[in-house]
């Protein structure tokens, strides 16, 4: 059976998502709606148009190119608007080829496991020299369980080191299968309080925590906990203490802090979305990050910052 997946990027020379030099496959679709999401183009399970206003020269050629009538212009001289509901029915995206300025781009492409293997194998020699490998990220890789499973399986057949970057929000039965072909897990913890977790990500945290506990009790796969540090949302001392205490209890040893950044903020505008977090939130300051690190290390956890 030819299994295909929807991905939005294959990024080579990733050096922050696991050991050595890696290629990270970014999958589309995610069950969470984190307010700070840096990859909003990864959320939906369909290809989407990104509109770069700064490149648009308002030639309006795309208006004619779109036979579905999804693109319109409020009045002459203004930027175009894309009706996403109409656009989502499209398969050929004539608007993109009509644009001279590269102002329209497609996020998301269908790819077979075989094709993806060919792509990631291009950096084999770099993996070999650096003890690197493949990372699947997203989006949420377990949202495309069949594809992720088959891809990781193929990677293991090729002798490649595999890393799963996951939010953990999936059924254990699916997760269990995928983990058979996983050498390292990067596991996100966003908040210890389930109500707050739901406010921040759209889902409660029970399933996530339970899966994590199962990983530690039922498997021996090295697991690094990744905690996004979002000022005023999840970075309270209480929550950090609670997280550290919990991690200590379940037997975790490695923690990565991911300080909040706004580098993905443009993508919201390009997708015609509002930035849910608002622009007031600042990246956490250095002193406070050091304090957080102290909290984790005081629980005997190795704590590293990852940008």
């Amino acid at each position: 059976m030819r299994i295909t997946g929807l991905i939005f990027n294959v990024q080579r020379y990733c050096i922050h998502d696991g050991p050595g030099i890696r290629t990270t496959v970014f999958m589309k679709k995610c069950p969470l709606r984190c307010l700070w999401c840096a990859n909003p183009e990864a959320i939906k399970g369909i290809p989407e148009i990104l509109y770069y206003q700064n490149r648009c020269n308002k030639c309006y050629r795309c208006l004619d190119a779109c036979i579905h009538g999804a693109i319109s212009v409020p009045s002459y001289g203004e930027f175009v608007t894309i009706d996403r509901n109409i656009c989502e029915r499209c398969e050929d995206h004539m608007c993109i080829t009509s644009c001279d300025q590269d102002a329209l781009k497609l996020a998301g492409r269908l790819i077979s496991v075989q094709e993806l293997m060919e792509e990631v194998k291009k950096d084999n020699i770099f993996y070999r020299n650096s003890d690197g490998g493949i990372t699947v990220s997203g989006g949420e890789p377990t949202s495309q369980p069949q594809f992720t499973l088959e891809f990781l399986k193929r990677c293991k057949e090729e002798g490649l080191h595999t890393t799963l970057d996951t939010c953990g929000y999936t059924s254990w039965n699916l997760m269990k299968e995928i983990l058979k072909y996983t050498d390292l897990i990067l596991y996100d913890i966003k908040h210890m309080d389930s109500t707050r977790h739901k406010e921040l990500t759209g889902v409660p945290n029970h399933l996530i925590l339970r899966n994590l506990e199962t990983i530690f009790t039922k498997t021996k796969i090295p697991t690094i906990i990744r905690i996004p540090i979002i000022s005023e949302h999840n970075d309270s001392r209480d929550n950090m203490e609670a997280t550290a205490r919990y991690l200590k209890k379940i037997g975790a040893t490695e923690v990565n802090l991911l300080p909040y950044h706004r580098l993905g903020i443009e993508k919201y505008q390009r997708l015609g979305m509002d930035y849910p977090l608002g622009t007031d939130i600042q990246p956490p300051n250095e002193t406070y990050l050091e304090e957080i690190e102290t909290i984790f290390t005081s629980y005997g956890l190795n704590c590293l910052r990852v940008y």
Partner: protein
Amino acid sequence: MAQERFSYINHVVSRESILTERVRRLKEEIRRQPVYGDWERDHLLTEYWRHSDNEQIYIRRARAFYKILTEKAISIFDGELIVGAPTRYLSGSAFYPEYGCDWIEEEWERFFSREADRFCPGENNREAVLKDIQFWKGKSLLDVVLPLWRREFGNLMEDMIEARVTIDIKPATQGRQIVNFIKVLNKGLKEIIKEANEMKDGAALDTAHNLRKYYFWDSCIIACEAVIEFAKRYANLAREMAKREANELRRRELEKIAQVCEKVPENPASSFHEALQSLWFTHLCIQIENNSYGYSLGRMDQYLYSFYKRDIEQGVITKEEAAELLACLWLKFSTIYWLTKGASAVICQTSNFQNVTIGGRDRDGNDASNELSRLIVEVDTALKLRQPTLSLRYHECSDSNFLFECAEDIATGGGKPAIFCEKYAYSVLPLYGIPLEDVIEFAPIGCVEMGIPGKTTPFGGCFVSLPHCLELTFTNGIHRKTGKKVGLETGDVESFSSFDEFMNAFFKQFEFVHHVIVTCNNTSEVAIRPDLTPCPFNSALIADCIAKGQDIHSGGGRYKQFYSSYPFGMVTTANSLYVIKKLVYEDGRVTMSELKDALSANFEGDKYGRLRKLCMDLPKYGNDIDEVDGIHRDLFRRINNIVTREKNAFGYPMAPAYLGITVHYWFGASCGATPDGRLAYTPFADGSLSPYPGTDTCGPTAVIKSATKANTSPALATLFNLKFYPSVFTNREGMKKFWYLIKTYSDLGGYHIQFNVVDRDTLLRAKEHPEDYPDLLIRVAGFSAYFVDLAPMVQDEIIARTEHSFG
């Protein structure tokens, strides 16, 4: 502002012991004082020339050199420990009218007002200068060579220069060489004089040929004595200054300088200080004799190490004192300039390519890096000067801490050190018949070319612009901008029925242009130079000139097989050829006639604008895509074949070398639109393996894969610039991953790679002037983006991130 050091690296000395108050003051002084264009050397030369008509040319050049070194004004500047300057002033250059004088007259005013390489006129008397220039008219090398070029090719060479199919380098001797510093430092110039004297004493004077040798040896002796005399003048000056010096500390320093200059370079150096001073006098006087660019220093950490080690072990100096002395030498490299025509000035961008090599292996195959190698990197990192150029010979057994220190230097920007993978050199140099014991001593000279220290004849380089040859294929031999015919009539481009036919026409254009340039270069190289501008001092320091009794220009040097052609614009050409192959011949989406018209219209207008998008949307070199990388690969193979079919002035095949310096701007400015979508008169891709800006969207591993597919052997050089972000080096892990990247480049057969770190200043400028940085692709936080696409707030955040990459 000096950046913080990486805390996880061990250093030999603290940053403060390099940037002492003296060093800071000297650096500031060099920055503050203007760079002078000084006629003094040229006037002394002219004076000598006026009254020496009957002298044999070797003797005449040597005596003129003697006059210059014994009569030119000298100074010791405040705080200096290493002394000797190219002119009366702290920084500057002479003009060297014997190589060509019309350009000096034409550009006299412009030297002092032009944008690049601006010089300060100093105390030159304009009338006297013009009088001297008058004297050289009809006598200078260029005046003599022009009629020969014209006899061979009419005005073709000059038209090519005007069309910028090639480069009009001021016809000085190419400085691309490393003289035998090891001999000067360990034996002294007196040993060379002794050798020349022995040869001279035994010389037969029975034939014109033998008499010429006799004169040659004599000229070497005079030239070496001139340099010794020059050093002794500094000794006297230091002694005089010491007598008048009120500050006790400085007085002792001056007395020390006097002692050192009294001894070297005449005698062997016996301390680190003497070795550095001996090296500097030698390097400086080579350039006073014959100013050019690319005079390089070779494996400095190797030949200076015994002096350093002995002094440290015997407690003669401390590591800190050694660092300060080294810093003083480093500052000196920044005071030497190459004063050239405006055109060449643009090429070099005030760089004169004094290349220092560190690292590599020793004769037993072991890692040769030592404490001095590390100290050199530390000095270079702390000083952040444009010169010297620093090169690392990389191999798998290189010491990790040493490599980390090199990366620390790279992270501060400025592209230093450039990394040279030894493996490539070991595979290529034997192809030129270089024996293994010399291969192992190789060092980059000038920019990126390989040379054998002390044994390679300085070689002339013939630049040929490939995108221009592509243009000539479209125009049937006519250069678009000047309208002059500089190529062949290869036929109407629309008549080619296959891509192969097109390629053949293109290579014919290249072969023709290349032939003209090489022939003209050979003419000036051997027909003219030996009899107009022999260089006895330089020759005395290159094996086997003294043994053979021959000047370097007459073939005295041991290795003469490195005369090079520099085909340029590989990537722009490969991308263009791929477009032609795909759009015109394979897919038939565009006719040759449409493409031709679009190019001559510079893609202007709606129709051609859309055609340009088709061209630009096709895959480009640098993304690890075989079908386009394959064209680039094949281009090397076929160009190598054409280049090596030509012979250099000594009968050896021309050697291909793919470098570039900054010629991509200069060449690009005279080349019409190219099929890759590049607009007319804009720069080409730089170097020979660097992707066209903004087209490499798959990151460094993909670029490295593309680059190492190229069929470069037996090229003596390739040039590969890669953009990088200092954040990579934040911690030891990131640092290791950086070196894994280099290891893989070496494994895959790469030669040179150098990193342009996208630093904070670049990002700030890009934020201010987005129009100048449309191609600045940044890679942070797991994704790539064009910097100019980002909102100011996000740009600020990225700028802020570059700050905490150190510490």
